[in-house]
């Protein structure tokens, strides 16, 4: 088999894996937009905040330690214990639910019925607020995140492909785990939304707020639930990306990777986020592989948007988005 074809296959597989990571971020956007019509600018910061909280809890860091020390003249930084990863994830999830309740109670409950642009602006404010609170709570240094996920080349795939093609493929163990977790997450979300009472309430609110209210669905409850689920998705994304790069404030920039996925997959479709992520991941990686060297490289950032734009031209609602029909 020609070398370029073999290399292309490796790039394709890695593109799929990268796409899954993009889709993880995009999922959080979709969940909130679908249920409340809000484009949540803070989704990337939520991933950062959840990852910061997770590391802080795992390491027994005293939240707001610098403030406490500055005010009371103390020197406390750590509780002196380490929390196991699983327990820390559960506790972090609790924090994200609390955040969802606060966001609903103090921000969006007061903005019901406002224009989408107002709601969007509110999420911009929320993003900066959360970033600042994260800094005050946990500090801004880069933190290593280790919840026990494997990293590095998968030796089995390397050896198998070496035997088949004479060239061992590089597939990162972390990407394989991310793919499995994302698959599990999507299946869980689909089961939740299709087969549980709360899930049906969420879909009802997504379809028509007024109609849902008229049959006794609590908007408050559903939105808190949706923000909590989005917080959970943000936590999963924060763990995956934070394991790769350490937990640091640039983690919030992963939202940039979700935007072309949303444009392509649609803002209202969970399968769209997944398929969109895969198309963007594979598309940008193959383009970089085939065309990058001819044009100086670093094509991925802009090509992802070009690819999304091309799809938009033919399907403005995105690949799986709801078709916009307006009758006059």
């Amino acid at each position, binding site marked *: 088999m020609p070398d370029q074809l073999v*290399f292309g296959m*490796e*790039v394709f597989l*890695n593109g799929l*894996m*990268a796409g899954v*990571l993009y889709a993880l971020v995009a999922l959080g956007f979709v969940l909130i937009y679908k249920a409340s019509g809000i484009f949540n600018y803070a989704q990337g910061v939520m991933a950062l905040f959840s990852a910061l909280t997770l590391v802080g809890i795992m390491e027994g860091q005293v939240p*707001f330690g*610098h*403030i406490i*020390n*500055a005010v009371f003249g103390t020197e406390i930084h750590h509780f002196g214990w380490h929390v196991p990863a699983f327990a820390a994830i559960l506790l972090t999830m609790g924090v994200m639910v609390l955040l969802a309740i606060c966001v609903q109670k103090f921000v969006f409950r007061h903005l019901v019925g406002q224009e989408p642009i107002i709601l969007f602006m509110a999420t911009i404010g929320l993003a900066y607020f959360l970033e600042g609170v994260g*800094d*005050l709570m946990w500090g*801004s*240094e*880069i*933190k*290593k*995140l*280790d919840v026990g996920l494997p*990293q*590095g*080349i998968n030796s089995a795939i390397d050896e198998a492909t070496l035997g088949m093609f004479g060239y061992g493929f*590089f597939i*990162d163990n972390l990407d394989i785990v991310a793919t499995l977790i994302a698959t599990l997450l999507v299946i869980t979300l689909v089961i939740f939304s299709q087969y549980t009472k709360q899930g049906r309430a969420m879909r009802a609110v997504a379809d028509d707020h007024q109609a849902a209210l008229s049959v006794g669905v609590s908007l408050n409850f559903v939105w808190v639930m949706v923000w909590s689920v989005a917080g959970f998705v943000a936590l999963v994304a924060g763990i995956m*990306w934070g394991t*790769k*790069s*350490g937990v*640091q*404030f*640039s*983690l*919030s*920039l*992963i939202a*940039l*990777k979700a935007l072309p996925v949303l444009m392509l997959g649609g803002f209202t479709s969970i399968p769209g986020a997944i398929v969109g992520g895969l198309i963007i991941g594979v598309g*940008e*990686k193959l383009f*970089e*592989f085939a065309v*990058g060297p001819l044009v*100086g*490289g*670093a094509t*991925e*950032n802009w090509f992802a948007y070009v690819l999304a734009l091309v799809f938009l031209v033919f399907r403005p609602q995105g690949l799986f988005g709801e078709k916009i029909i307006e009758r006059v």
Partner: protein
Amino acid sequence: MKLKLATLALGATMAAGPVMADLVFPSLSYRTGPFAAGGIPFADGYADYFTLLNERDGGIGGELAQVPECETAYNTEKGVECYEATKDLGALVYQPLSTGITYQLIPKVTADGIPMHTMGYGRTSAKNGKVFSHVFNYPANYWDGASAGVNHFLEQAGGSLEGKKITLLHFNGAYGREPISTLEALSEKHGFDFNAIPIDYPGQEQKSQWLQIRRERPDYILFWGWGVMNQVAVQEAANIRFPMENFMGIWWSGSENDVIPAGDGANGYKALQFHNVGDDYPVFEDIQKYVVDAGKAAGAGDQIGSVLYNRGVYAAFLAAEAAKQAQAANGTSKIDAAMMRDAMEGLTITADIMSDAGLPNFGPAFNVTCENHGGEGMAAVAQWDASAQSWSLISDFSPSDASVVGPLIDADSAAFASENNISPNCN
């Protein structure tokens, strides 16, 4: 929070205006945003050294030093705003801490007569003081770094790079592209194959670049990254099992921040440095005693000895030393920006001066002249020991290849002079 309080306090000081007799060293810092993890220790080191001089020595030549801090968030527009907001405070020298801000400030500082020190960043050809009268980039610049990296690989390869392949993995912007011309010239001289692989900002996803590296199998990689790009690159190198001793970052890709997230995988990774590492210097004992323990540290006091904190201290030491030499040359403790510029142009840093400052062998000894605002371009190589969680220098400070770097600087500065109607001269 302590950082924030310190910033607020300094902001308030700035708003109130300095006592005119004070020596003012504005700090264009970035404690917020995606690059804060790199900006905070530098800003802390810079501020703490001046606080030490004030507390221990009563300032510089009897004049207290002020460090009004202005937050740039590593953003060029904000950096220019900070310059405009602080220049009338009696600023003696600027350290803009960003190549983007540097490029914007070059014409401004020249017009305003305030010197700017871009230590290990900025416009490389500013080394030519005949063209860039108010810009200094001692003790080393990016092209020195490229040359030092190649020299190290040359030594590692047993004296010949003939037929070897060196890849530059770099930030896809002005900073990352700086060393390309130097490396092309060096590849012709030493006979190695050279290629450059760019990474777009912010660099959280680098799979394509590392797959390419895995396919092309370069013998050595030089790396020009910043921020999250650094941590991801080191992790990806570990993932593809690239030999870490053949992977070397520029000084902005060689702090603890860059290697700790990768754990043991980062062991053996190298980085160029133009100053020493670690905390085994008398000055740090004094900083602990007079600044941290006295509750006057700019930060939490837990960064002492880290690479970027040391860099901040070193930058402050060089500024303070120039101020001292300006005072001596002019016979007055009350110096202005013009005196400071002249002193920087005649700056001499010797082993004795560093020892007296509690920084023995902390950096290279060097001289600055009008023709040479960059010193001899001395750099050393540091290596990361993951088990000890520490950097250590594995080479002495040695000069860059002037036969390659010199003509490139002449050509680039001549082009700048021509574009800006500058007649190169030494007044």
